[in-house]
């Protein structure tokens, strides 16, 4: 694995690139988009393991931290949705440069899924999108993690700052209203729970004339649960399904 910084010099992004192993050709290249806040910490080990399995299956992988998160530049209270989407754009370019690849797959978890769908909707190079337990509605998400989501000023969610600007960026996002994000590429919703809002995303896409796959793999999905010792969540079944989807073995 090659750890490095890339992107803007004033707020560099931390990336970890690892090439695929074995003689598999042509190699797929996969960009992994983390969730945010405490969910990022809870998912880090699962992402590393997904990364390992993808490498073993022959895929090149780039993981990276959005600005103001993880090892990337910036303070947490400076984070914005707009900048996170620009970060994904940077990461798409970075992966294609590293992997010498003309097309890539993107897998995101929770906010990583939602932001990846929106950030790459005009990137023709992204021909495959896997949305793992996506945040469907920003407003519903904020209501689930904050006691008073409309309160002014800087708020904390399990130790991570959510500024007004960040919340204002999250609030209006609703995947059911953005079916255009799924045009022109294969898209799969990979979900641990069979929920109405996930089915509504698929239905909204269908009405828009776009087919979105829906894979339900019952498995733990309590990403936002606060663990007093910062324990990790590693849902094996859904990780293995993600690898199979990205390898084209499952639609």
């Amino acid at each position: 694995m090659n750890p490095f910084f890339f992107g803007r010099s004033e707020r560099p992004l931390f990336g970890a690139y690892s090439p695929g192993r074995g003689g598999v050709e042509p190699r797929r290249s996969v960009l992994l988009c983390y969730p945010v806040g405490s969910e990022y910490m809870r998912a880090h080990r699962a992402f590393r393991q997904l990364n390992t399995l993808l490498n073993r299956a022959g895929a090149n992988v780039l993981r990276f931290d959005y600005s103001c998160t993880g090892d990337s530049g910036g303070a947490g209270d400076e984070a914005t949705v707009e900048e996170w989407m620009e970060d994904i754009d940077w990461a798409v370019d970075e992966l294609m440069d590293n992997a010498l690849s003309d097309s890539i797959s993107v897998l995101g978890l929770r906010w990583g899924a939602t932001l990846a769908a929106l950030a790459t909707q005009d990137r023709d190079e992204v021909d495959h999108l896997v949305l793992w337990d996506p945040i469907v509605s920003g407003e519903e998400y904020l209501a689930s993690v904050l006691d008073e989501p409309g309160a002014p000023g800087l708020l904390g969610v399990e130790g991570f700052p959510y500024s007004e600007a960040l919340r204002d960026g999250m609030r209006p996002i609703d995947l059911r209203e953005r079916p255009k994000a799924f045009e022109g590429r294969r898209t799969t919703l990979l979900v641990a729970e069979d929920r109405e809002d996930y089915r509504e995303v698929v239905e909204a896409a269908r009405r828009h004339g776009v087919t979105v796959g829906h894979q339900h793999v019952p498995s733990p999905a309590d990403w936002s649960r606060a663990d007093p010792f910062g324990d990790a969540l590693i849902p094996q079944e859904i990780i293995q399904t993600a690898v199979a989807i990205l390898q084209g073995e499952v639609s």
Partner: protein
Amino acid sequence: MRERALTFGPANLVAILTEPDPEQARPDAPGSIILNSGILHRAGASRMYVRSARALAEEGLTTLRFDFSGIGDSEVRRGESIPIEKRFIQETREAMDYLQTEMGLDRFILGGLCSGADGAFWTGLADERVSGIWQIDGFSYTTRGYWIRRYAPKLLDPRAWMHSIKVRVAPEQAGVSDDREEVFVKPEYRRVFPPREEVEAGLRALLERDTELFFFFTGAQEYLYRRQHHDAFPGLGLDERAKVEFLPECTHTMTELEHQRQFLHHLRTWARGIVGPAPEVAAEAAA
């Protein structure tokens, strides 16, 4: 403040080096290393390792955050069967070796939360290059004052007699483990506090070497008042020789922004006491 990603040592451990800006650099300052807590990667619980490294760099300390083998982005160390505690020490020493070779640093401050605090303590005993240690929820021991504070209010409250007393066992949590290869194996580390006498002997040895010590306790352990650490080791004079802070409302992983701010303030104050004020502050004071 500048940051760069790197790997070091025979196991290619993954790290982020945070260096002071040239105007903040202190040629005489020790290096600084932050150790993983449990299975959390080098960003630390609530991203506090990132913020701590940046705060220390602003005080002039070049700071390395790294992942032990098998944690975060560092690969499992293959072909070597080393007990966890020894691996903490070995890999932290490899980090010191790296900073000594590449940066010319020969004294180090080690710090961390929970198992990272334990690793700092054990490495400090094993390597005389360690000149300072900070710990969040390091080893702590109950005292007479602890038991009085814990049970005196209940003795006076008849409702308390209606409830059984919960006995807390030694804390345990996920942490660093052995060399298993399975992709999905989550490392496990049972944290057991050593006998008080062992820790007391260790602290005495560190103090005899003039090691700077900062202990920060949250409300997550059997710790109930600020001077408890002093009272647990009455012969060491920690009152005079160490900084001890206690924030009872604070959770183990520092999930409140205000508690994070308070911890960082204490860390910076302690670090400044070691290296002196930043050059521009010193210049202002002289003027």
